């Protein structure tokens, strides 16, 4: 029974009087508390996998149907920004991992530094995403709000992209399907950004708590679990990046 945490009663009795303040009343040992919350976090991430899973399924089918539209749509995303942002997010994952390490080894200032860095990188990511979205707005690529297929029936209308990829004009029926691409693009990156915003808010909260010494007293559960969440959001992006940006970059 590898996962059985059936409490060893002696341990429970022994530690009973010296509960650390952060131990909740209904747990017998701190190990049990850590295990339980960690497991809960993993289960939560499972729900997230399935949540994005639905989106990925929709994406996959639409991409197969409207491949040319998806290719040309993707040419209007900036590969520079996309790659940069992937780097930013990976770096923030790294700083987060280091933050967890600092908490585990009880380095308070290191932890705060890492959390702040993660926070800053998260904001940078969102800013870049914002710049990209703004670009799409300017190009009239926001479905439902100001969409225009101009760039796809007449690729030369955007000389920059045209110079790079020499896209042929799409048929009128295929050109309107680029809206499908951008719809999914906004749905997926938007949902991802939403998760980032939630994460960043929690980071702020954590930075304040960390300054009060909350996570460097041996009780790292919260930092650990938040780390899992942050890395998970990173993983989603790791898949979004090739799927949305790198469909076909060779002219």
């Amino acid at each position, binding site marked *: 029974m590898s996962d059985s945490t059936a409490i060893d009663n002696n341990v429970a009795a022994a530690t009973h009087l010296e509960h650390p303040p952060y131990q909740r009343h209904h747990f017998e040992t701190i190990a049990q508390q850590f295990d339980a919350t960690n497991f809960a976090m993993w289960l939560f991430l499972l729900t997230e996998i399935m949540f994005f899973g639905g989106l990925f399924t929709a994406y996959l089918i639409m991409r197969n149907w409207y491949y040319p539209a998806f290719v040309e749509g993707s040419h209007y995303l900036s590969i520079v920004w996309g790659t940069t942002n992937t780097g930013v997010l990976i770096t923030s994952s790294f700083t987060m991992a280091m933050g967890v390490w600092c908490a585990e080894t009880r380095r308070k200032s290191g932890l705060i530094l890492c959390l702040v860095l993660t926070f800053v990188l998260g904001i940078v990511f969102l800013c870049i995403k914002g710049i990209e979205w703004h670009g799409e707005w300017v190009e009239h690529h926001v479905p439902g709000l100001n969409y225009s297929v101009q760039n796809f029936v007449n690729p030369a209308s955007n000389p920059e992209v045209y110079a790079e990829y020499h896209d042929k004009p799409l048929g009128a029926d295929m050109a309107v399907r680029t809206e499908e691409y951008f719809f999914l693009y906004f749905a997926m990156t938007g949902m991802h950004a939403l998760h980032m915003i939630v994460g960043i808010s929690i980071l702020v909260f954590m930075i304040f708590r960390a300054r009060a010494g909350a996570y460097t007293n041996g009780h790292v559960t919260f930092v650990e679990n938040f780390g899992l969440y942050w890395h998970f959001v990173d993983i989603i992006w790791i*898949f979004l990046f090739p799927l949305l940006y790198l469909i076909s970059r060779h002219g």
Partner: protein
Amino acid sequence: MSEPHAPEHHIVSPKVYLAIFFSLLVLTALTTAASFVEMYVFNVVVALAIAVVKASLVVLFFMHVKYSSKLTKLTLASGLFVFLGLLTMTLADYISRAWGRW
């Protein structure tokens, strides 16, 4: 019950983190570069393969799954299993719709 006295889990060393971090950056560069090479259907295969490798690195090391209990591994596996079930069985319908028509 195997280790009731060892609540402290494995602490991954910063060196490992750093190594993973750099591999991730390299793989990112690689995937971007690969997308500029014409490989026909293999473009998407390569891109996804690299993404899977990157994701595995993050999961195994940043998320400590490599050092975690069987339960964590099983949990993750079951999630992936159901997700892949959703994907493959839905796609199976789409793909086989044209069957029997040729």
